Structures are given as C-alpha cells and as structure tokens.
C-alpha cells in the first residue's frame, strides 16, 4: 500500500465526483416541481464547482507527482482498484467540467421545457462520469467512467435533441463504443503483460517492447481518435452537435472532445513512447487534414452548429498536432488549447442556442441583421468569434501560438519526412481559414440590414443569458491576457510528460527480455 499524497485531509476527488450523483439522487427522490428541480440542480453544480476550486487552490505547482490521491481496493480478484489522483494535466479539466456544467444548467434554464427533471439528472450524472475520467488513475476505472458517459449523453441528445436526433445519437453511441472496445482489449493485454496491474503509473513505468507498444498504441488510438475526433473518424460529431440541445453541444465540445486528447496525453505518450514517436507522421498528417480540410468544409456549412462543430474539429487538430510534437511549448499549447477551446466553443454553441431559442432554426440563411435588434448579443458573439479566430488577447491565441512555436522548433528532437518547420507553416494557415469561416458566418448572421420580419421580433439577451456568458467572457480574456495561472499549473507535469514521451523504453524492454531468457535457461 503506497503512500498517498493528499494535502487535504478528506477525499476531495471522490466528493467532487459523486456530489453531482448524490444531488441527482436527491432530486430524483425528493424534489418536486420544475423550478425546485432547476434550483437544486444549480445549487449542486455550483457546490461541485466550489469544491473543485479547492483542487486549484491547494494544488502544488512544484511537483509532477499525482496529488489528492485516493486508493481503495475495488475488485480484488483482478487487482482493479479505485485509484484517484490529479496532476497538472488533468486538474484543469476537472475545473473546466464543473464550471461548464454550471453554465449548461443555467443555459437550459427555461429553454428546456419537457422533462426538466430527467434533463438535470442526466447532466449531473454526466458530470460525475466526466470528472471521473479525468481523476481516474486506474485503467479500468478510467474505462468505466469513459463508457458510463455514453448513457447520459445518449439520452441527452436523443430525448432533447432536434429533428434527426435518433440517427445522430445512435451514430454517436456506436461510434464511440466501437472505438473504445479496442481500448479495453489493450488495457487487458497490458494487464497480463505488465504483471497483473491496471495502475497507470505502473503501466507507464513498465518497459513494453516495440511490438507491444505498437498494438497497444493502435488500440488506444482508435478509441481516442474517435473521441477527439480525428479525420476520418469525425463524421459523428457534426451530426451529434447539430441535433444535440444547446447544453449538450456545450458539454460535447467543451469536455467530451477533450477526453480523447487527454487520453493521448495520459496513455499513449507515457505508456508507448516509442510507438508514439513512430506514429508521429501519421498524427501530423491527420492533424493537418483536420486543420485545412475541415476548415474548408466548415466554410461551406449553412447550419451554424454544424459550422462550429467542424471548427471544433479543426481546433482539435491543433491540439493533436501539439500533442505529438513532444516539445514543452507544443504540449502546453495543446493542453491550454483544450481548455481555451472548452470556453470558446462552448460559448459559440451558447450563442447559437440564444438565437435558436428565439427563431428555432439554425440555418444561417434564416438570419441577418441580428445586430439591429440584439446589440448586446452581437457584441458577445463578436468577442467569441474573434476568440475562435485566435486573435491576440483571447485564450485561443496563446494556445495556437504555443503549439505553432513548439511545432516549429520540434525538429531538434527527431527527423521527419519533411521538416516540422513546414508543418508549422501549414498549420499556421488556420490563421486565415478560421477567419474565413468564422467571420463569414458572423457577417451573414449578425450584420446586414433588418429585412426578415421574424428577425425583427427577436428580443435582446436577458440578464440570465448575459449571466452565463459573463464567466466565459471573463475567462477567455483573462486567460488570453494573463495565462500564467494555468500555465504554472501545467509546467512541471508537462515537463515530466515530455521527459517520458521522449525517452525510449526499448533498452529496458530488451534488458527485461534478456533477464527472462536467462531465468528460463537457469530453470532448465
């Protein structure tokens, strides 16, 4: 039983994971009446957020070791344990989750009219699974939360979604499930290879030889690539986003996509460093496809949500690119990019939601001249569009520039078919492309003269709506102008990750193989 590093006396992670579920149960059993349900759900989510703030407050930036650790035997028969802990890489995502959940619940305040109770339950349970994913340090526990997430999300899209929701949600469900089963195989295979353990740190430490790394990497890759999503496994996302209710899209873009990239950081890089190195060209190509191809596709969308969904894929392309450059800047940029995208994409979907609540259409063509009637909204959306374009001063810029810098300088590490300088240059084209699709959409929706009668009738944003935009605006600008609070949190862990990802396991694996051979000869 190892020493648990938890500065707080109490199991804070468990609390932040299961507090939402607890709240859900309470709501389910005792709370009656829609507004009561809403308020309780809000209270619970806010409470959870405050709880997770403690993580940030008491977080020790100085160490890459896991913090707030917890350990309980769970399934002794298979050495599956309830092992929790966070480091600089996972901690920000927990905060992101708890914050966005609050935003979601507020955003759904009166645009969700049917089955409010189930809705809130689904979101709280979803929060549990998401925080669990980021806090889990045991392979199976991770998989457990990873898969459990499907159930509430499936229902959220399917019950409160748009016209074509059934197709979208089933597509989402099967895509993700199909991807992740191979991850389970990889986990189980590792379990038997690495001496019957699912402990992530043990697996990171265990020297797998290249062949093993190769297959394990593939297994994980498919699971994560579907979630991120990476071309050509991305087609579920536009459908899911288009059909999901606003808050569903927010969580989907804000957190779910991050799970995939987080998986790369947590599993692929440390566990299979050599395989990761080996697959860099593949990842680079896919990421660039995401940046260029998907941006062009996004430009041609006539459905706002679809457009933003595609732009999310493009931005995640940046993240995966940064992830597989193994430089401090690129990795930090990737992580920061995920956080920033969590806010920006979420906000953009909320913007669409605001419009949708008024006109019940997502067609860009149906709008035009919105600014005349909704100046506040126009200003807010302008801010987030510019953030989406990664203008300096917005958080996205920090991420983009760090990824690019890390990529540009990456070829000191390894030789690729083509120098990573040119990869960076190619990725930088998103500076132009993102501007094209974002501004074009903004122009068609917000600017222009007021001709359409139904647009004339739209009221400007209510205080509630401003209320849930406010934190996002503050965060986007704050992280854009002064990102150090977040960067300080991730520095050490990322440095450690870089160290893990760039050092080979092959020598150790070879030595191990030698030792085993020797042992057998001795036995014989």
């Amino acid at each position: 039983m190892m020493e648990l590093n938890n500065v707080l006396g109490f199991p804070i992670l468990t609390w932040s994971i299961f507090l939402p579920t607890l709240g859900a149960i309470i709501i389910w059993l005792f709370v009656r009446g829609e507004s009561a349900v809403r308020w309780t759900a809000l209270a619970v989510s806010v409470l959870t957020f405050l709880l997770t703030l403690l993580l940030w407050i008491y977080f020790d930036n100085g160490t890459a070791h896991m913090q707030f650790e917890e350990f309980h035997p769970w399934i002794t028969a298979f050495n599956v344990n309830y092992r929790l802990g966070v480091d600089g890489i996972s901690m920000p995502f927990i905060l992101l989750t708890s914050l966005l959940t609050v935003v979601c619940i507020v955003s759904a305040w009166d645009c969700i009219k049917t089955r409010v109770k189930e809705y809130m339950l689904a979101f709280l349970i979803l929060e549990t699974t998401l925080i669990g994913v980021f806090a889990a340090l045991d392979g199976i526990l991770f998989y457990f939360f990873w898969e459990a997430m499907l159930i509430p999300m499936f229902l959220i899209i399917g019950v409160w979604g748009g016209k074509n929701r059934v197709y979208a949600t089933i597509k989402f469900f099967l895509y993700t499930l199909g991807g992740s089963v191979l991850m389970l195989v990889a986990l189980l295979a590792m379990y038997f290879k690495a001496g019957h353990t699912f402990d992530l740190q043990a697996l990171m430490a265990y020297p797998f030889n290249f062949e093993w790394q190769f297959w394990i990497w593939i297994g994980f890759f498919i699971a994560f690539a579907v979630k991120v999503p990476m071309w050509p496994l991305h087609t579920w996302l536009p459908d899911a986003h288009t059909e999901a209710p606003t808050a569903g899209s927010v969580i989907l873009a804000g957190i779910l996509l991050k799970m995939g990239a987080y998986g790369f950081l947590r599993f692929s890089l440390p566990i299979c460093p050599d395989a990761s190195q080996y697959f860099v060209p593949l990842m680079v190509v896919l990421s660039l496809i995401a940046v260029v191809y998907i941006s062009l596709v996004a430009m041609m969308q006539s459905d706002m949500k679809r457009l933003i969904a595609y732009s999310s894929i493009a931005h995640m392309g940046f993240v995966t690119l940064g992830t597989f450059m193994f430089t401090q800047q690129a990795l930090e940029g990737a992580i920061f990019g995920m956080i920033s995208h969590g806010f920006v994409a979420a906000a953009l979907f909320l913007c669409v939601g605001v419009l949708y609540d008024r006109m019940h259409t997502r067609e860009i063509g149906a709008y035009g001249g919105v600014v005349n009637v909704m100046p506040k909204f126009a200003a807010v959306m302008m801010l987030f569009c510019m953030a989406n374009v990664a203008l300096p001063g917005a958080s996205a810029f920090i991420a983009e520039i760090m990824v690019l810098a890390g990529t540009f300088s990456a070829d000191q590490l390894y030789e690729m078919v083509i120098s990573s300088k040119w990869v960076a240059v190619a990725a930088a084209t998103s500076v132009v492309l993102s501007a094209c699709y974002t501004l074009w959409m903004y122009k068609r929706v917000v600017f222009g003269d007021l001709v359409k009668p139904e647009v004339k009738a739209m009221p400007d944003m209510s205080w509630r709506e401003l209320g849930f935009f406010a934190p996002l605006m503050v965060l986007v600008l704050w992280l854009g102008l002064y990102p150090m609070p977040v960067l300080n949190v991730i520095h050490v862990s990322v440095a450690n990750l870089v160290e893990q990802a760039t050092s080979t396991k092959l020598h150790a694996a070879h030595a191990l193989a030698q030792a085993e051979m020797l042992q057998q000869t001795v036995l014989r």
Partner: protein
Amino acid sequence: MLNSTELLAIPALPLIASLVVGLFGWALKEKLSHTITSASVILSALLSAHVFTQVLGGASFYGNFWTWMLSDTFVVPVGMMIDQLTVIMMLTVTVVSSCVHIYTIGYMHGDPGYSRFFSYISGFTFSMLVLVMGNNFFTLFFGWEAVGLVSYLLIGFWFKRESANFAAMKAFIVNRVGDFGFLVGVLAIWYYFGSFDYRDVFAQVPALVAQGDSLHFLGWEMSAITFICLSLFVGAMGKSGQVPLHVWLPDSMEGPTPISALIHAATMVTAGVFMVARCSPMFEYSETALAAVVFVGAVTAWMCATIGLVQTDIKRVIAYSTCSQLGYMFVACGVSAYSAAIFHLMTHAYFKALLFLAAGSVIHAVMAEQDLRKMGQLRKAMPVTYITMLIAALALSGVPPFAGFWSKDLIIEAVGAREMGLVGDFAYFAVLSAVFMTAFYTFRMFFLTFHNSDRVAAKTKPHVHESPKVITIPLMILAVGALLTGAWGVMGLDIANPEIANGYFGSSLFVLDAHNPLMTLAEEGEHGWYHFVFTAPFWLAISGIGLAYAMYFRETDMPAKLAAASKPVYTFILNKWYWDELYAKTVMYPAQGLGRWLWQKGDLAMIDKGLIHGGIVGGVLAGMNRMRAMQTGYVYHYAFAMIIGVFATLTYLVLKG
C-alpha cells in the same frame, strides 16, 4: 530614463476611455462620450509630446511590465521600448488621432452609433500605441491584430450596408493572410534567436548571418535571415496594402471618412513601414529581402498611381494615392533609406489625413455624395476646406515647400543613389513616373471638386455650406502640419542626416555603411536650397499639375476624348487592373468549390455513405438477412443444420487427426 507610469498612461488613457464609452455608451449622452474619449486622447497626445521632448534630450526607455506567456525557453513579456523611432510614431498617431476625434464630433453628429464610434477610435489609438511602443514582436503583434480588429469593426461600422460588411470582412481576411506571414516570421525568429525581444534578436543577427543557417523546402533553399525578413514583409504587405494584398484598402473606404483618415491613411496602414524600419537590423543583412521590398513597393507605387488617375469616387482616389505613397515608403526602406521612409510616413500622415478630412468635409456638404462627377464649383461655398485641401494637394504632389516635397524628394534621390541593378532601375522609373501621376490625379480631384463646371445635384444645392468649426479647426491644425512638418523634419530634427546615428534617429535605425544611399548622396556633394529646381521630380510634379489644369480646368471635354481614344487601357485601369476579379476567380470560388467538394464527396459520400453506411452497416445488414433467411421455420431445416454442424466438426477433427 523615462518615467514608466507616464509611458503607461499614454496608451492606458485611450483604452480606459474606450472601455468606458464602449460598455456604458448606451447610458451616456453624446456630449459625455466624445468629451471622455477626446480628452483622454488629447491628453495622451500631450504626454507623447512631452516624451518626445525628453527623447530629443537623449532619454529613452526599455523595460518589461509582466510576463504574458512562458513555457521554459518560450518567454513572452509585455514591455515597452521608447526611442526616437517609437516616439515619432507616438506623436504622429496621437496628434492625428486627436484631430480626428475632434473632427468626428461634428462629422458623426446624430449617428445612432455615435458613442460606439468614439469607443472604437479611442480603442484604435490604444492599439496603435501598443503596436509602436512594444519592445518585442508579440507586443507588436498584439497591437497589429488589435488595429486590424478595430479597422474591421470600423469599416463595417454602417453594418446595414452589405458592401460595408463585405469590405470589412475582406479587409480582415486579407490582413490575416499578411498576419500568417508575420506569424511564421515570428516563429522563425524564436527558433533562430530563442527570443522575441527586439534587443536580443537584433544583437544576434550578425552571428546568425555569419553562421549561414538556411532552410530547405522540397529542394528549394533560402538563408534563414532572408526567410525571416520575407515572412515579416508579407505581414507588412498585408497591413500596408502593398500589391498583391492591396485590394482591401480601397474597399475600406466604405467606412466613415474620419476612419479613412485616421486608420486607412495616416496610421494603421503605415504600421508595415514602421515594422520594416524597426527590423532594419535584420533586413539590412538580406539583399534578397531588400530587393523584394523595393520591387513590391515600386510596383505598388506605380500601379496604384495609374488606378488613381481614373477613379471617380473622391475617397477612392485618395485611397489609391495612399497605397501609392506607402509604396514610396517601402521603396525607401528597400533602398535602406529607412529614415526617409519614416520621414515620409510622418509628413504623409499629416497631409493625407488632411486630404481625407477635407474630402469628408466636402462629402458632408454635398449630402454624402462621393462621386466627383457630381461636384464642382464648391470653392465659393466652402473656402476653408478649399484652402486646406489645396495645401494638402500641393503637399501630396511634392511641391516645395510643402511637407510632401521634402520627404518624397529625399526618397527619390535615395532610390537614384542606391545601386540595386535591374530592380533599382525599375524602382527609380516607377517612383519618378508616379510623381507625375500623383500630381495629376491629385489636382484632377481638386479641380473636379472645387472648380470645373457646377455639377452638384439640384436638390443638394441648398445644403452646400462650409462645415462647422468643429470640423474646420482640425483641418487647420493638420494644414499647419502639412505645411511645416517637412521643413521641420529636415531642418529641425535633422532627420535626413546621412549618418543616421548622428541624425535624429540615432541608434533606433540601423543601416550597413555598405549600402547607405544617403551617404552616397552626401558624397555627391552639398546642394543649396534651390537645388530642387534642377531635379526631375519637381518638374514632373509641376507638369502633372499643369496637365490636370489643362484637362479639368480649361479643356474640360478633353478627358472624355482621351478615354475614348485609349479605350482598352482606360477600362483596364478603370477596373483596377481586375485584381478583385482575379482573386474571385483564382482564390475565392476555387476555395469554396473545394470546401463543398470535400464536404459532399469526402465527408458525406466517401466516409459516411461509403465507409460507414455502405461498409460497416451494410455488412451488418447483409449478415442479418443471411441469418434471418436461415431461420426458415421448417423443422427439417433446423434438424439439418444440427446434423451439418455435427458432421462438419467431426470431419474437421478426423481430418485434423
């Protein structure tokens, strides 16, 4: 050492004003809005002036305020670097901006977006100041993008106009193309110098050059420094409307006139020139880059001048002349006469702003009519505008002793003096012929507006009147600038000193002695003040004016004949050399088509229909039907299946042994 709080105050004041007015504009009265913003900007102008005097006294500032980004070796501070170059920019920006603020009070009076407008222009002033005051490439880039954003917002200020919205988007996207280059350059800078800080970077340049690093791309090679300089220059081209990225600048005239004056003539568009000058320690070491700068500048100067000849929209004429003048500045940079470039930048700021504001005053008078063909004979109605506009026109045409003459003459002589082979000769030809054209179109516009026949529409006639004081006073202020800055610059500031180090700029600019055109000029010997009489530019300008006089003052039917005589050339120029059409055909439509194709064929057809539905789902369904078909419902089939199962396994085992 300068007082850092004072320095911080200079950009901070407009920022605060902008935020206050922007956030609470809906609550503020017009009066309050413009008072807050104008006051803050004027204050920062005064502060800049104060700083300017201190800098003249040899003071300077260099320091970081806080760390913006940090990731081990990737350090981006936010800091300031105040030297002669910076301070002259600060002064120009704040002064012009103040004038524009005051002017706007009258010009935008009663516009629904009044306070929004003021918030924007104050915000612009802040951004521009950040751009020039920053001490590293990212602070520069921050301002760079911020001014871009504000310009986007202001071009689309009248968002009801489709054309305005389109122009705004066009401006932003074309600028992003430039920013792409700039960003790549900055990345390369970090890669090779490990820093973004001007001082660190510039200090390491010679070492890098000596080391002879070079980049390869599919067998094509260029030296690192050239790569950096060219990338940065791409950024400059975008910002400063150089061919082929100039297309946005004329369209930006969709914005309100004060904006055209402040942003798209005086300050923002010159950011590119400023940046190149600021990076002179790098450009100096790359002949290729310098040649590229000269070439692009020359092409722009000449081409935009030709387009200016035939434009009928008063603002577009000035806009093209702006492009052309920016071309001059880049040519100057290219021939390493940075001081001349900045000098022209400064003078140009005054007289071009003046020109625009005067034009604005005219437009104001004739009820938002911008078509030269619907003006004329306004001289009587609006004398102040007339005079000031005349001053500006003379300055622009380079007639002594007006500001434009000094700077432009310096540039042309520098170009003549610098030996750059073919490019150099072309540039020299271009700038010379451009002088003539500039003079011509400027006065063409001038005569068509104020003289010629009276073509003002009948119903607007009664409204034609001189603009109110609040508009004319700024005109006068700027007129003074357009009159004096040239002489002041040469005599007072000793800007034109061949040994830059000893001149005004001191160490803020850097020129290799190997190719310092001003040096060569100096060696040619000292000239008297009357020297200009013997130079080509002067006579070109005069003849240009003369021709304009002839065509638009006397023989007013001549232009039509000429146009008819040279139809193809005329139409070609009239349509701005078909740049927009070219881009539409070669970039816009192809990109959209590609996007649609990738979406329909790639995503929907190939992946969704082909792989998912066709491949996997199809396979599953096929299997499903096969399984169903097996379940016929007939007992004997079931029994048969069982027996087959038994025999199959049995034979398998037996054969396997």
